[in-house]
């Protein structure tokens, strides 16, 4: 079991902000209200009304105790979690007090059955109430806390993802903008410098110094580490019902003891034991079956929960009734109605708790992987930016500055040469390249264009974009095929085909060259084709003349 669940310990979940809450009371009260009717024998409208009044009054008492606890011992629970046992104790005390109050008031109203002695009933009911809320209150706190944690983390995470996606789409969609953002100020600066160039040669050295300063600055910024905003949150999906809609623990931990105590209090220990054990066994059967169904079809989880608790609750009540003598069906009817509701509420709480405990590590890891993959991509883009800055720096340094130095040493036309150097820099910066996804046809045309000086090249490319990380591979393969066709096949005509396939692209290049030379040539691009295709490529001489190379990139 993980030490922390969704980032919090058991104590922080149970003894924290949700140890006692209005929401918890709102969940408990309808169940508790109904539970009283389980004891209402010989229901007549008059008596039911009295039961309802007693139940409401006792609930008020319960709420008062919780409120008192919240204002005293649980006062600081929001900042500092209290002990789990304190929550258990408050649950047990409030449960016992409420049940005791119900018994006392029922006795006063003459609603208790004559054969039972008052003390025995009082003790049994108080024990039942203490057991139910002693277990129920910490479980409820745990479920509410886990749920709240789920929701908060999930929202936070989604916002984070949205932010990442936004940044990402901006960067992917605007690589050109990224380039422009970096090069535009530099180009503008160079233009200003070109304007400043008069006929005095002394200015040139200032200009050269300026260019050197810019190059240095770009180089330095490119070496700064990329931002390191790690995301370490779990993907939080409230899928407890899908995961385990009918937890066995709900039956064994909560339903069984409470059924035993409740029936024992009404009848006797043998009846309580028989009926609660047989009811529990019936319930276990239903829960086991439901769990199997939910595991096979997780999507059915919520349905399994509703149907399972309905059937299970009624069945357990009927079986309990049957084994405890089978008399007085009418007297047991309220029990049969309240039983499913009681069962459903405890099952839901336990399911959420168990789901939170079991799923937390898994969901956190899943989300982290998702986030990490994105982060890697972002990181790559930041490196791209750094690379671009270096490119610009090297243009400034290697080209512009170098030529300015030459200009300074040519007294006759140094201003003209210097201006030319700056113009050259401006032009080159406009053409800095950054990898983006490219349409297959465009890529084929770009790579083939220079070779069409030497060979006739026919291009047939399917529609679609070659992803950014594959552009380099596709263009390398094309370049290799074209240069081989010319250099080793002495070809004059080449056919380039780029076909879209289910998973990736197929590049086929055929030529009319000498064929055999190429087909034999082991070194000719073999390693490249092997590397980019993972071995899925072929090179064959064609029947009449020439050679055909096919490389699959997935």
């Amino acid at each position, binding site marked *: 079991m993980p030490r922390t669940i969704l980032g919090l310990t058991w104590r922080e979940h149970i003894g924290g902000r949700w140890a006692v809450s209005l929401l918890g009371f709102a969940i408990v009260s309808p169940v508790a209200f109904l539970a009283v009717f389980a004891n209402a024998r010989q229901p007549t409208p008059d008596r039911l009304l009295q039961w309802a009044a007693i139940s409401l009054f006792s609930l008020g008492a319960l709420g008062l105790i919780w409120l008192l606890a919240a204002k005293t011992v649980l006062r600081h629970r929001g900042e500092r979690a209290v002990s789990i046992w304190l929550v258990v104790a408050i649950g047990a005390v409030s449960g016992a007090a409420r049940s005791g109050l119900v018994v006392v008031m029922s006795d006063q109203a003459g609603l208790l059955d004559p054969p039972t002695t008052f003390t025995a009933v009082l003790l049994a009911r108080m024990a039942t109430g203490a057991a139910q809320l002693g277990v129920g209150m910490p479980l409820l706190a745990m479920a509410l806390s886990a749920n709240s944690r789920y929701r908060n983390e999930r929202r936070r995470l989604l916002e984070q993802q949205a932010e990442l996606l936004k940044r990402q789409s901006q960067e992917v969609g605007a690589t050109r903008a990224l380039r422009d953002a970096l090069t535009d100020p530099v180009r503008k600066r160079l233009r200003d410098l070109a304007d400043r160039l008069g006929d005095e040669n002394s200015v040139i050295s200032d200009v050269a110094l300026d260019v050197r300063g810019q190059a240095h600055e770009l180089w330095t910024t490119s070496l700064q580490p990329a931002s390191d905003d790690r995301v370490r949150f779990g993907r939080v999906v409230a899928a407890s019902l899908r995961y385990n809609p009918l937890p066995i623990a709900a039956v064994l931990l909560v339903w069984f003891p409470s059924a035993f105590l409740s029936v024992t209090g009404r009848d006797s220990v043998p009846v309580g034991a028989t009926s609660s054990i047989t009811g529990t066994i019936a319930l276990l059967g239903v829960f086991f079956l439901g769990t199997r169904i939910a595991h096979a079809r997780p999507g059915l989880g919520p349905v399994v929960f509703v149907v399972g608790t309905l059937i299970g609750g009624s069945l357990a009540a009927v079986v309990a009734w049957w084994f405890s003598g089978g008399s007085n069906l009418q007297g047991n009817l309220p029990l049969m109605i309240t039983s499913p509701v009681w069962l459903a509420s405890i099952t839901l709480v336990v399911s959420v708790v168990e789901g939170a405990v079991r799923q937390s590590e898994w969901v956190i890891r899943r989300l982290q992987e998702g986030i990490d993959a994105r982060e890697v991509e972002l990181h790559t883009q930041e490196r791209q930016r750094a690379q671009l800055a270096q490119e610009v720096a090297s243009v400034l*340094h*290697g080209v512009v500055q170098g030529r300015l130095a030459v200009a300074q040493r040519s007294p006759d036309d140094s201003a003209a040469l210097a201006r030319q150097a700056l113009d050259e820099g401006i032009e080159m910066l406009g053409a800095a390249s950054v990898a983006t996804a490219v349409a297959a046809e465009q890529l084929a045309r770009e790579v083939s*264009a*220079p070779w069409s*000086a030497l060979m006739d090249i026919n291009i047939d490319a399917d529609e679609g974009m070659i992803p950014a990380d594959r552009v380099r591979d596709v263009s390398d393969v094309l*370049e290799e095929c074209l240069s081989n066709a*010319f250099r080793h096949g002495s070809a004059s005509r080449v056919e380039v085909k780029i076909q879209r396939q289910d998973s990736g692209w197929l590049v086929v290049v055929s030529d009319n060259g000498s064929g055999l030379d190429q087909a034999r040539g082991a070194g000719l691009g073999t*390693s490249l084709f092997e590397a980019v295709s993972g071995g899925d490529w072929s090179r064959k001489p064609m029947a009449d003349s020439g050679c055909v190379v096919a490389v699959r990139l997935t």
Partner: protein
Amino acid sequence: MTSVLVVEDDSFVRATVATALRFHDFEVVATVGTALEAMEEFRQLLPDIALLDLDLGQGPTGADLAVGMRRIQPEVGIVFLTSFEDPRLLDSRLTNMPERCGYVVKQSLEDTEFLAEAIRGCGEGGAVPRVNLTESQAETLRLLAAGLSNAEIARLRVVEVSSVEKAIRRTAEALGVEHDEATNQRVALARAYYRMAGLGRGPA
């Protein structure tokens, strides 16, 4: 007058070279910057001499253009003007350069007269300079200078990473790049490549 076609992708060098050649009484029939323009002008003008930059960016190299031009006009004189101290530094497969060609390294060009001499004597051809590296070392060095990791170099060359490490060590020895505390060997090697390729030295 001998007619010359100048193919050079750097406009600054192109203009300078054309001026120098005119000064030395050559007829510069056209100056172009791309392979496409080069072949187009060549077919139309059929110059006596083609002065070719080796590195024309992506696509055919100057050596490929030379082959293409010889297919059209077998007697054309070819002179390579390049910043690469060894053509294999541009492309490790450029081991066999076309025959009867001149080869001039830009950095070693102290006087334009030297270039004029190379063009006048290009019929005899000249020795293509070689640096002290094997093809695979030259290729490894080029990929290293392109910023690839050892793992990526190994993937592209389909060899073990250990072979790449060994090739880098040998290259460093061959180029006399010291391995010491003060410098990063990888960076030093990349700089050595840039120097030999005539691509500048990077910030001091």
